[in-house]
């Protein structure tokens, strides 16, 4: 559905994207991961036809992205990475403005989304908080029920409750057969929502894999809080897991890929708490590439 083939855009200073190639199949949810400045937005701008590629090409549904924009946009919902709404309008006026430009007459889906994301659409956009503006952007991308969604960091600025609501929306859209590209720099978010993950770093794709094989390769660290120092040292002396002692009673076990083994072993000890470390992109890179960052 979305094809990017050898896409290259050199902004100089080693900025840009280089030889990006990936495919997003119909009904697939593709998570586009990478640190800030890695090239996610640049890639997406090519899909939207804002930039001329130095080399390579991208197509959406077989149509060339730079020149067949008008036809492509009939099927696309876009959420820009930067909040750039028309300030002078209220939320509702903006939705009506966009609907008219899209020649969409039915605003019932728009109203459902407004209710769902609890947006006060009569507020002037100028006076909205970042989170409210982000809701406007989300609704704008989804309100015409497009077949393809291109979302550039869709959850930035949304509070945790709205992020959960957004995740639900994504899974519903996925069940409706939508093709979705969403970028993020948060691994957890992508892991929850996506089928396939592509990681970009310094303008180059470093991996494209489906979420299951990533999960299998994923190594997770856990912090174990034991009931007392004695229990902790008993564990430390007997375990074959890699570990690091944090305080007298707490131990971090590292790079666990089979949680069952750990749980079996831990059943012998008195544990107060287990905390799993938030899985950051940094870790993903480390585990994937043995820590080599360049």
């Amino acid at each position, binding site marked *: 559905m979305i094809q990017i083939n050898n896409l290259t855009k050199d902004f100089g200073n080693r900025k840009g994207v280089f030889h990006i190639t990936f495919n997003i199949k119909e009904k697939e949810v593709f998570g586009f991961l990478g640190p800030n400045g890695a090239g996610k937005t640049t890639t997406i*701008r090519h899909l*939207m*036809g*804002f*930039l*001329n590629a130095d080399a390579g090409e991208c197509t959406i549904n077989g149509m060339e992205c730079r020149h067949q*924009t*008008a*036809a492509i*946009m*009939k099927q*696309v919902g*876009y959420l*820009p990475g*930067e*909040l*750039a*709404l*028309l300030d*002078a309008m209220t939320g509702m006026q903006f939705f*009506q*403005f*966009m609907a*008219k*430009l*899209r*020649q969409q007459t039915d605003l019932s889906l728009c109203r459902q989304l407004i209710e769902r994301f609890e947006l006060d659409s009569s507020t002037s956009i100028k006076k909205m908080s970042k989170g409210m503006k982000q809701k406007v952007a989300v609704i*704008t991308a989804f309100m015409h029920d497009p077949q393809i969604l291109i979302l550039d960091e869709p959850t930035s600025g949304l509070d945790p409750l709205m992020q959960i609501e957004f995740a639900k929306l994504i899974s519903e859209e996925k069940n409706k057969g939508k093709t979705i590209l969403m970028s993020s720099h948060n691994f957890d978010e992508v892991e929850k929502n996506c089928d396939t993950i592509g990681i970009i770093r310094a303008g180059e794709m470093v991996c494209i894999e489906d979420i299951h094989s990533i999960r299998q390769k994923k190594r997770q660290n856990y912090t174990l809080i034991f009931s007392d120092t004695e229990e902790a040292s008993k564990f430390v002396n007997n375990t074959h897991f890699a570990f690091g002692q944090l305080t007298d009673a707490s131990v971090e076990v590292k790079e666990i890929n089979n949680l069952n083994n750990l749980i079996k072993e831990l059943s012998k000890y008195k544990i107060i708490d287990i905390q799993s470390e938030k899985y950051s992109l940094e870790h993903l890179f480390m585990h994937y590439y043995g820590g080599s960052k360049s």
Partner: protein
Amino acid sequence: MKLSSLLKFNIKQNYGIFTIISGVMILYVTVIINMYDPKGLDELIALANFKMSSELMTAFGFNIDVNASLVTMVASYFYGMLIYFVLIIYVIMVSNRLIVEHVDKGSMAYLLSTPHTRIQIASFQAIFFIASIALQILILTLVGWAASEASFPGLLDVNAFFMLNLGVFLLFAALSGISFLASCIFNETKNALALGAGLPLAFIIIDILANVDEKLNVLHNFTLITLFDSDAIIANGAYVVNFFIMATISILLYISGIWIFSKRDLSL
């Protein structure tokens, strides 16, 4: 119309400046027309000379003799310079809002995420711009005509007055073409203003300098404003060629703006 909501947005965004500029022009032209005295302009000229040196008078385009006709006086006192400064403010502000401000702020991303090509969006904005300038001048023409008929029935050379206004429209089509082109070329408002406001203002200032002194006459070759020759229009001289040149320049400027906008990288 597919882009009717963009039209609505443009109108909402610009009717304020449109009304102010239109109001100022109407006020000026009405006052100037009522300063006319069919018995001779010696008093008016004496009064003006009392306030300004004769060099300054010619610099501002106020160079008429005592027996000048109504249309000659209006051409000299209003279409000689005042209108440039008033109308160029409208041109600069609106050209900026139509394209580059959307790119600079990022809202162009939304316009282009609807099923419209860049050429459609830019052409629409260009047509809106030209039409609004034409409307400004149409209102001015009708008010000027009405004011003349009210104060001095039958005294206005209506043909010459209409041609004068058509000339001013073509001049501003060309000047606005520069501003529009600048708006299409740049990603940032400040750069667009440097060219899109700087060059038309430079043309106006060069025109004034060229009028100050015979020795600076050569400067007339370096400003578009020379193409608008009110003396030739009133004397029914050879002004058609100039009209044609101004129209051609305008079309070229607008088309290149739209074309460049459709081809370039946008910083969205």
